[in-house]
């Protein structure tokens, strides 16, 4: 016979992960509004701050399993934004304005070289410096798109940010496996050193090509660019994510390239709700908050200095890259300055690349994770702030901050 105490909750109450995620989301929303109204900053700064505070305060309540559960949410949010950014990357523009290709290449190369040099200068081990440098090349697609939408930014700087951000995310996604292959070579595992990057790059490109083609074939059969048609696209993006995971391919590279392939199937503009609608926006908030949760005080002790060096070197390189060739590509110096200052966001993509590296090359675990988590904490606050200031300065963002 059922007793009354079987029907009532057991004491003490043990809320599950959903409870904490819900609580963190509510707190993040409040912090986001506070950032917007009181500080005139983008909401994303509030979300990130909520994640960092929640991570610090709830450390005793969280275990590794709970943090691992957030990975799939981060990957889903990333998949949608990577595909969206890939879909905005225009090869026609790159063909028409070769200076943009050179600007992007210079910016990416400078960032990698300068960050590796800075990290080596403070005695960070070569493998960690090389991977961290490769990760630093990328600009967060999620934060770029979130800020563009929230600030209703539009104009030449915004368009170039999305273009350069898409390209450097592709470089970073390709550089990281190549660097891991190089480590394996250093250890004498030449078979793995050659086969692993080759499998990852060729496999990701092949899956992207298939997904882009299939997505286009599916989408063009829908009656119009409406909410129902884009649901099919969401399904296709998540399926591609699942396949990339199944075949252990590079999730960012696959999704970015799939977006590029999808876009270039025909000239017809494909328009769907920004961030794939409200569901996508919620996933992004979850992602930003989740990335603050794992950071501990010990991480600052281990990787704080290296993270600061990485952030400074990365920012100097991106600014120099934009300023060096930008004027030749048809942008005023003022706008190039804004572009260089806005290329800083680091977020889910950097975390995912770090997590993949740690999984394949555990020797780098402690230091690499600490450096990237600390760098994320810094750039989650600094990058959106600088982005908003820069874009308002050149008149591309609304001063009402998304109201």
């Amino acid at each position, binding site marked *: 016979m059922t007793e009354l105490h079987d029907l009532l909750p057991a004491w003490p109450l043990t809320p599950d992960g959903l409870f904490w995620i819900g609580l963190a989301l509510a707190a993040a929303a409040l912090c986001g509004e506070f950032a917007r109204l009181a500080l005139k900053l983008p909401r994303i700064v509030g979300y990130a701050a909520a994640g960092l505070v929640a991570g610090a305060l709830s450390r005793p309540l969280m275990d590794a399993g709970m943090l691992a559960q957030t990975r799939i949410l981060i990957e889903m949010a990333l998949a949608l934004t990577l595909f969206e950014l890939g879909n*905005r990357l*225009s090869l026609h523009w790159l063909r028409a304005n070769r200076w943009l290709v050179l600007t992007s290449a210079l910016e990416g190369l400078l960032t990698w070289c300068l960050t590796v040099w800075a990290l080596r200068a403070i005695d960070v081990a070569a493998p960690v410096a090389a991977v961290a440098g490769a990760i630093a090349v990328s600009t967060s697609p999620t934060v770029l798109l979130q800020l563009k939408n929230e600030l209703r930014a539009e*104009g*030449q700087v915004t*368009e170039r940010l999305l273009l350069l951000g898409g390209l450097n995310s592709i470089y970073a996604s390709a550089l990281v496996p190549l660097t891991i292959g190089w480590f394996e070579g250093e250890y004498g595992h030449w078979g793995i050193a050659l086969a692993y990057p080759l499998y990852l790059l060729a496999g990701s490109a092949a899956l992207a090509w298939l997904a882009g083609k299939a997505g286009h074939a599916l989408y063009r059969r829908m009656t*119009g660019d409406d909410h129902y048609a884009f649901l099919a696209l969401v399904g296709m993006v998540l399926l591609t994510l699942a396949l990339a995971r199944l075949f252990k391919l590079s999730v960012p590279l696959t999704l970015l390239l799939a977006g590029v392939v999808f876009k270039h199937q025909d000239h017809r*503009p494909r328009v769907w709700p920004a961030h794939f609608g409200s569901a996508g926006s919620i996933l992004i908030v979850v992602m930003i908050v989740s990335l603050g949760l794992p950071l501990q005080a010990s991480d600052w002790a281990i990787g704080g200095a290296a993270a600061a060096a990485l952030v400074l070197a990365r920012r100097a390189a991106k600014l120099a890259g934009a300023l060096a060739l930008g004027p030749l590509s*048809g942008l*005023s110096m003022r706008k190039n300055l804004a572009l260089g200052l806005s290329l800083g966001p680091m977020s889910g993509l950097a975390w995912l690349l770090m997590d993949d590296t740690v999984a394949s090359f555990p020797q780098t675990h402690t230091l690499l994770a600490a450096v990237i988590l600390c760098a994320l904490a810094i750039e989650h606050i600094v990058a959106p702030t600088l982005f908003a200031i820069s874009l308002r300065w050149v*008149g591309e963002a609304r001063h009402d901050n998304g109201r």
Partner: protein
Amino acid sequence: MPLEPFVASEALTFGIELELQLVNRHDYDLAPASADLLRQLRKRKFPGEIKPEITDSMIEIATGICRSHDEALQQLGQIRDCMSKAATALHIGICGGGTHPFQQWSRRTISNSPRYRFLSDLYGYLAKQFTVFGQHVHLGCPNPDDALYLLHALSRYVPHFIALAASSPFVQGVDTRFDSARLNSISAFPMSGRAPFVLTWDAFAAYFEKMRATGVIESMKDCYWDIRPKPEFGTIEVRVMDTPLTVERAAVIAAYIQALGRWLLLERPFAPAEDDYLVYTFNRFQACRFGLAGEYADPASGDRVPLAGHILQTVRTLAPHAGALGSESALERVQETARTRNTDAQWVRAAQDQTRNLHEVVRCGCERWAQPAQTNDGSDKR
């Protein structure tokens, strides 16, 4: 600012101004790109002028002083090609059309110039709703009294100009069922519509001073009339046309106005009268709403005839003048358009019917704008 003296200009010379749309290449919404485009054009050589407009998603091109249709077409073609090259490097599109089919006026930003800031403060949301795109044709007049005669005589033909250039059926994503919905945005301004009926410059100056004394206007720039005198250029400015989708059609319409001007100035076939304006608003509405399928109430006879038929009849009258001006081919195009009723508004609607996607319609509009006429489908002679 007092009324400027009317500068004499060579009769029947003309200039064309076109307000153009700047769009992004992602979803083809309007893009705030005029400053970047102007910067890109700084070192390039082209005839005429390219300048910013009230919102930073608009740009205005103007030819120099032209004497013939061919000259105008050549200048416009050169400006178009130069702009297209610059726009490609910036990944923006340029297109004609009296309205952008789906832009939301509230998202527009006013250009950073004192005049436009003043207009924005004065007119509130009307200034942003003024994100519409027109073709203006200046016609040279040897003296101010001829200018006023021509202004009022040409008023009878305003429906012709509207219907031939109509290219704005969509506003804010909706088919308005007008061929030219653009003029509805302009009607909200206090000094819009027809000019006051005065036939001498002294009488016009007296009217202007009275209005200035009331504070309603400060200069001629505050008068948004369908046709207005432009004393500093020595011209009258016909302002009722939508920007067509191609420079070819823009040049044809200007040549039609030039031929009409020649006929009116040389033959003085009728004397303008205040009563001409009794049917003005009706005719204007018919042309905006139905385009070439509209009706035309003849102010002289009071008869109601098909507008397209009235245009065909006028073209026949103008034949010797077109011959003298070297614009026979342009008038043939007018004739063909009136006969087939193949206007830009029809093209926009057909593109929407075919694609069911206004973003795609704007993309096709950009392609149409950028391509020289000879590379287009031979059946479509614009």
